[in-house]
C-alpha cells in the first residue's frame, strides 16, 4: 500500500476516444469483462485510478493466496492479475490508468460521454462499472478540522513540486511515498521534518539510508511520534502538535503531507443517478444492467438478491452482461452462442488457430 505512484505522471489527453464499451475498474472482473466482450467482437477501454491493473488483487493482497478461483487451486492476487492479462491480450484492450472518471452523461444519440480527472474524454455505447469497493484514495488522518487545511496546507499527493518550494514541510509516514518525498522535497523546502510513529521504516532500505544521511547532516529533522492536532487559521497551518513517548512537542510548519496508505471510497459514481443502495448499484440478474439502460455493473460494486462478493461471481456476471451489450453494440446482428472449445471463429479471435 505505498503511494509512490503519485510520482508517475498522468496520461496526456490524446483527444476523445470513441469506443463500444468503457469499463470502469481494472480489477479481476473488469479484466475478465474485456475477454467476454472481446469474444463477441466488442472493443473495450479500461479506466482505473491506480497506476496499475488488478484492483484490490494487486493493491491489497498481491502476495496472498486465493483458493476459490475455479481451476486454479491456489493463485496469488498478482498471479491472477497476470493470468487475466495474458488471457485478454488477444483483444488488445486499451488502459487509461492513474485517473478517475469524474463525469458521466448521456448524449442525445443514446451514447455516453465520460471524462476523467486527467482530461481524457470518451464517447461510448455502453458503460460497465466494475469498480469493486470504490476507488482507492489516500487516507485522511482523523485530526480534528483537517478538512479546513486540505488543498491549502495539507496535501495527499504532490502534483507540482514547485508549489512546495520554500515551505516548512512536515511529512508523515514511514513507507516509500513518505521517504521518496523527503528526498525529493528536501532540496527545495525551507525546512523539512519527517514524522513517524516508530524509528523503523517500511520504505526501501536505500531511501532510508539516504534519509538518515540527511538527518545526520542536519538537513532533515526526524521526529518519532504521532501528530494529534493542527494549529492555524483560515486553512493556513502554522504548527502541529506531536505526541511522543515522553510528552508533547509543537512542530512549526506551514505544509503537511500525510502518507497513511489508501482506502476505498465510492467517489463520483454516487452522482450518476444509478439509484445506489448502501453504496452499491442495484442490477437485475439476467443482464446485470443498472436502472439506466446501457450502464451495467459487475463485481463487488453491484447488488441483487443473493449477491456474493466473490471474484468467480463477477466472472459469471461479466459473461451475462456481455450478451446484452452485444444487442446494444450490434443491434442488427443475431448473436450465435458458441464454445471456445469448438468454435473456429472464437479460436481465431483468441489467436490459437
Amino acid at each position, binding site marked *: *500500500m505505498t503511494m509512490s505512484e503519485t510520482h508517475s505522471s498522468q496520461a496526456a489527453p490524446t483527444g476523445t476516444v470513441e469506443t463500444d464499451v468503457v469499463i470502469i475498474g481494472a480489477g479481476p472482473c473488469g479484466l475478465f469483462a474485456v475477454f467476454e466482450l472481446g469474444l463477441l467482437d466488442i472493443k473495450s477501454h479500461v479506466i482505473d485510478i491506480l497506476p496499475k491493473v488488478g484492483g*484490490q488483487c494487486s493493491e*491489497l*493482497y498481491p502476495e*496472498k493466496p486465493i483458493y476459490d478461483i475455479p481451476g486454479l487451486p491456489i493463485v496469488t492476487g498478482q498471479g491472477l492479475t497476470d493470468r487475466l492479462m495474458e488471457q485478454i491480450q488477444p483483444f488488445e484492450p486499451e488502459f487509461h490508468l492513474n485517473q478517475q472518471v469524474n463525469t458521466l452523461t448521456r448524449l442525445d444519440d443514446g451514447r455516453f460521454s465520460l471524462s476523467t480527472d486527467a482530461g481524457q474524454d470518451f464517447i461510448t455505447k455502453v458503460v460497465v462499472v466494475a469498480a469493486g*469497493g470504490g476507488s482507492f484514495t489516500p*487516507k*485522511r*488522518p*482523523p485530526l480534528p478540522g483537517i478538512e479546513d487545511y486540505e488543498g491549502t496546507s495539507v496535501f495527499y499527493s504532490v502534483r507540482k513540486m514547485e508549489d512546495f518550494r520554500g515551505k516548512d514541510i512536515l511529512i508523515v*509516514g*514511514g*513507507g516509500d511515498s513518505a521517504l521518496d518525498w523527503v528526498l525529493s522535497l528536501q532540496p527545495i523546502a525551507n525546512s523539512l521534518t519527517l514524522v*513517524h*510513529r*516508530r524509528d*523503523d521504516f*517500511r520504505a526501501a532500505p536505500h531511501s532510508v539510508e539516504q534519509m538518515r544521511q540527511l538527518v545526520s547532516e542536519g538537513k532533515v529533522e526526524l521526529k518519532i511520534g*504521532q501528530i*494529534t492536532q493542527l494549529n492555524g487559521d483560515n486553512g493556513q497551518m502554522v504548527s502541529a502538535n506531536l505526541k511522543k513517548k515522553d510528552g508533547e512537542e509543537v512542530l512549526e510548519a506551514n505544509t503537511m503531507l500525510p502518507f*497513511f*496508505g489508501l*482506502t*476505498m471510497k465510492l467517489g463520483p459514481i454516487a452522482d450518476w443517478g444509478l439509484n445506489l443502495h448502501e453504496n452499491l448499484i442495484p442490477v437485475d440478474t439476467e443482464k446485470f444492467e443498472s436502472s439506466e439502460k446501457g450502464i451495467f455493473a459487475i463485481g463487488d460494486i453491484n447488488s441483487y438478491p443473493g449477491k456474493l462478493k466473490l471474484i468467480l461471481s463477477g466472472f459469471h456476471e461479466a459473461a451475462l452482461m456481455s450478451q446484452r451489450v452485444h444487442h446494444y453494440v450490434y443491434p442488427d446482428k443475431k448473436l450465435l452462442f458458441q464454445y471456445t472449445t469448438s468454435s473456429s471463429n472464437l479460436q481465431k479471435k483468441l489467436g490459437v488457430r
Partner: protein
Amino acid sequence: MAKITFIQPDGTSQDVEAKPGATVMESAKLNNIPGIEAECGGACACATCHVYVDSAWRDKVGKPEAMEEDMLDFAFDVREESRLSCQIKVTDELDGLIVRVPEKQF
C-alpha cells in the same frame, strides 16, 4: 468458546462468545461490534480492525509480527498495546480477553 469483551470509546461494552481458531476480528464482525471495519477482510492489508489490548492481557496476546507492525503504521493513535484484531487468533487461553475499540479507524 472464549469470552471476549469489546469496550467502545464511550465506555459501553459488549461480550461475545468467540470460537477458538477464529480471529478476534472475525468474532467482532460476526457479532456486529461497531468500530471494527476490517476493510480488507482479514488480509492484514488495511489496519481498519485496530484494537487496544487490555494491559492484563498483553503478554498472553503477544506482540505484532513485522508485517502487522508495518500495517499499524496506517492506523491512527497507535499505542504500545495496539494490535490488528485480524491477527489475533482466539484460543481457550484467551477466554476473558478484553480489547478496546479506538475512537476512529481512519
